[in-house]
């Protein structure tokens, strides 16, 4: 897996799971924590204010063709994240067992290179969903007692 940097971004369109990653009622987009090592074929659109690209959940999986995505970010901003050097290469996620928030979360260390995305839980602002690659072809989706900002700050 290539070295990646986690960065916050507002996703305007994401052709994954039939576009449900950004619901129709979210006219301003949805805030995600993404990873630079999953970006490909970035192009400017909307007079340079936005960018289109293909995003891979698992770039090492030959079955992953990449999903079309539109970000509310300029190319210069993406370049700054791609060329950044994070202080820490892993983050500590407080993962709820069985994705059950009534249980006690377990601190789990995950490499930032393996994290595909993080998005806030719509039920509670104190939690977020994290999708990461557990090596090979396995993709894990876990509920964490972290905010996306907390995860991002751990890398800085």
């Amino acid at each position, binding site marked *: 897996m*290539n070295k990646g940097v986690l960065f916050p971004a507002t996703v305007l369109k994401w052709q994954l799971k039939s576009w449900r990653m950004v619901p129709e009622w979210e006219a301003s987009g949805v805030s995600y924590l993404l990873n630079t090592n999953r970006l*490909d074929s*970035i192009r*400017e659109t909307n007079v340079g204010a936005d960018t289109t690209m293909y995003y891979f959940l698992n770039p090492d999986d*030959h079955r992953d063709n*990449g999903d079309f995505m539109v970000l509310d970010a300029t190319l210069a901003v993406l370049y700054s994240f791609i060329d950044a050097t994070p202080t820490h290469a892993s983050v500590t996620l407080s993962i709820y067992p069985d994705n059950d928030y009534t249980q006690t979360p377990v601190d789990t260390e995950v490499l930032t290179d393996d994290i595909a995305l993080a998005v806030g839980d719509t039920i509670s602002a104190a939690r977020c969903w994290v999708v990461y690659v557990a090596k090979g072809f396995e993709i894990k989706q876990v509920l964490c007692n972290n905010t996306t900002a907390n995860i991002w700050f751990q890398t800085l």
Partner: protein
Amino acid sequence: MNLFLATVWKWQDLRDSSNRISARETATGRQFILNTNRITDIKDLSTLTENRCSFLYADNPSDRRESCSFLEVNKSQAEMEAIIDSVPHSQALTLPFQPKKEPWGAPCFPLRTPVDTTIGIWSVTYFTEYNPDPDNYCWLCYYKGAFKRIEVLVNYSLEDIEDIVETGTTTSTTTSTTEVREQ
């Protein structure tokens, strides 16, 4: 991880890449821009008169079916070590992709407008000259994700690509004469 310009004298494997060095280029070699993240088993073949080394090169190191190609290039082992330790200006490249891999459109052959596209350096397999107009175009082969091989024509020369990798901008100016086909 970095990209570097090298003259390749041999490129051997069981696939089509055995034709990447044509018969008339075996004496002079052919220039490629290669990626250090695809190299392994470097061996020094230098003599007193020339720098030369061989290594195994993977077009797609993420593919389990990959069997590496054998290359001989005009670099010594020491030079290769220095290149591997070097750092590019940026981890991404913004390149003008030529639509339909063809500079000319239709009718009356106007130039097609290239589309600026940014890719990560990690995905690049190689750049090589576009034989009809090497001063203005080159071929790029890169992998989108782990499986999909993309070959595109880029509206830069190899020297322009080298400048962008090292400095972030093209510092060279090239002039070209365009041959207008008469109907």
